[in-house]
């Protein structure tokens, strides 16, 4: 039993937490920006898959790692635009369109991947992001290993949280986005265009989702598998609710989920005898639901979430 507690104080565990959390942070942030403007984007799972493939393929074809991330963001943004055009000006069901985007993006990803590369038994590899030790900080005992020896996209994820929080809460642009999610008619009355704001938010949010997916193929692993996102996108959708649509809490939620996951991988071989491994695998999901129940009591849902805006309609 002591061993199980000791794990919580190992730097390696916390290093793993940040690695597991990174794609979730990007994805949750992306979904949060979409939803703050009033659009639910269930295309996330497909967009993450697309981002994973596109970033990897760019690097595989000779591009740089950052170019790969950029191309992934652009492709993600394009699928975001598709989702936005269907759901914002055309006002289609956001659920159905989002699921359609997920199916479309993941199938298209598979198709392109198969067309571009011949069948091989072991998928080809690239040289991924290497852990980047921050000089000075990485020598601090414990925190150095846990926090300051990560790959570059992980630092970018933390930065993205800070920037998003600042823009959403402190700038006129952020106010406009939040207002569009609460009451688009009031935005219209202010002389702003809610349709444009929503489209912009969905495009940017989807670009972030794609970057989240690309982390899987350019940093933690170095090859692409068509089904490797493994539901991380859906976890992000739940984390947005957990975070009650706030960027800071989104970071907390992603870290908590990753902690459960990293912890259960270590618990599997510490707890002896007769405990089925499925119980451990369930832990992050069950604890997320519990946390969701506790947190969502005070959640403030954007009032116009999933309500299409039609000019002049009451």
């Amino acid at each position: 039993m002591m061993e199980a507690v000791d794990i919580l104080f190992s730097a390696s565990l916390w290093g793993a937490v940040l690695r597991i959390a990174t794609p979730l942070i990007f994805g949750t942030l992306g979904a949060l920006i979409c939803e703050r403007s009033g659009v639910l984007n269930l295309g996330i799972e497909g967009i993450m898959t697309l981002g994973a493939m596109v970033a990897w393929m760019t690097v595989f074809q000779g591009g740089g790692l950052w170019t790969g991330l950029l191309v992934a963001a652009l492709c993600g943004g394009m699928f975001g635009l598709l989702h936005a055009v269907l759901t914002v000006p055309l006002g289609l069901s956001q659920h159905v369109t989002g699921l359609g985007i997920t199916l479309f993006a993941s199938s298209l990803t598979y198709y392109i991947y198969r067309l571009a590369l011949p069948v091989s038994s072991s998928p080809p590899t690239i040289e991924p992001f290497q852990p980047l030790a921050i000089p000075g900080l990485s020598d601090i005992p414990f925190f150095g290993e846990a926090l300051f020896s990560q790959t570059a996209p992980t630092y970018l994820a933390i930065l993205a949280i800070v920037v998003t929080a600042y823009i959403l809460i402190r700038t006129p642009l952020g106010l406009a986005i939040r207002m569009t999610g609460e009451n688009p008619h009031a935005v219209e009355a202010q002389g702003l265009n809610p349709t444009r704001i929503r489209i912009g938010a969905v495009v940017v949010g989807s670009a972030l989702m794609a970057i989240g997916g690309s982390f899987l193929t350019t940093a933690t692993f170095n090859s692409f598998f068509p089904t490797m996102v493994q539901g991380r996108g859906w976890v992000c959708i739940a984390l947005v609710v957990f975070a009650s649509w706030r960027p800071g809490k989104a970071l907390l939620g992603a870290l908590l989920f990753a902690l459960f996951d990293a912890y259960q991988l270590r618990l599997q071989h510490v707890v002896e005898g007769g405990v089925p491994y499925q119980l451990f695998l369930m832990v992050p999901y069950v604890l997320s639901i519990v946390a969701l129940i506790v947190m969502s009591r005070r959640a403030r849902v954007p009032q116009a979430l999933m309500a299409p805006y039609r000019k002049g309609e009451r």
Partner: protein
Amino acid sequence: MTYRFSRRFILAATACLLPAIASPALAADKIKVAGIHASPVENAWNSRIHEALQSAADDGVIEYVFSEGVSGTDYARAMREYAEQGHDLIWGESYAVENEARQVAKDYPDVAFLMGSSGGPSGDNFGVFGTRNHEAAYLAGMLAGNVSKSNTFGSVGGYPIPEVNLLINAFRDGVREVNPDATFLNGFIGAWFDPPKAKEAAIAQIDAGADVIFGERIGTADGAKENNVLAIGSLIDYTPRYPGTVFANAIWNFRPTVDAIVADVKAGNPVGKDYTEFSFMKHGGNELIFVSDNIPADAISAMEAKQKAIKDGSFEVPINTDEPS
């Protein structure tokens, strides 16, 4: 998804078949095989089968077409379409569709079926096979037992199904043979395709002291590589991908199974039987590929003696399908 059926495809396929019907003498030479893969053929397990069938096709023994990424809900339909197209042998994996697959086989008594399955064969035309590279895993364990410094051995698996369990248990038995007081760790990731998670599982075991890790799933060796410990690959040869990290691989060869069933189909024998034995070492169904650097010479000779005993039948690697803890 590339090899989709469409009306046009079927028309084209039928058009291609016409000359074959016109000259039955030619058609009798080659067995027409269709493979239906539930996963992308990059999946290590599928790739072994795909390559075996491909090599048989290259040798002119069979004609081979395939579909990949066929979901369980679509599986029986794909089987029927290939049967309707006049294929002699349909290879597949019926783990998720055991009942439906057997029904299809009943409806097409003239077509032979060979399925990766958790159940037994049925009828005259529904044969099954299991995956057995446990003998090679045992031998890999014997080498691992001699290269570990911490005496702690990890393993990362997908799900605890019998074919995964028996592999990990055989690896452990091999380690124990040379290293009776070894400690074992194990993690299941609950997914077949999640390399980042397999990597984290490996890192978790390295934290707990493991310095040789048996990677039933791809991604495991990435964790080992980052932390400068050793790993063992399963099914395919991972050494080119992780040089210096993966020092041994428990290779599975599917070609002996293909040759056995093709011979049966050609001879007109019923194929409703279990072809698992052709995955055993004495048939060349699995083998150990290893890098001898840094392995003590006496460890290698002990392993080779055991390999000889397995091949001549004087030693049998135990098959233990209990879930490793």
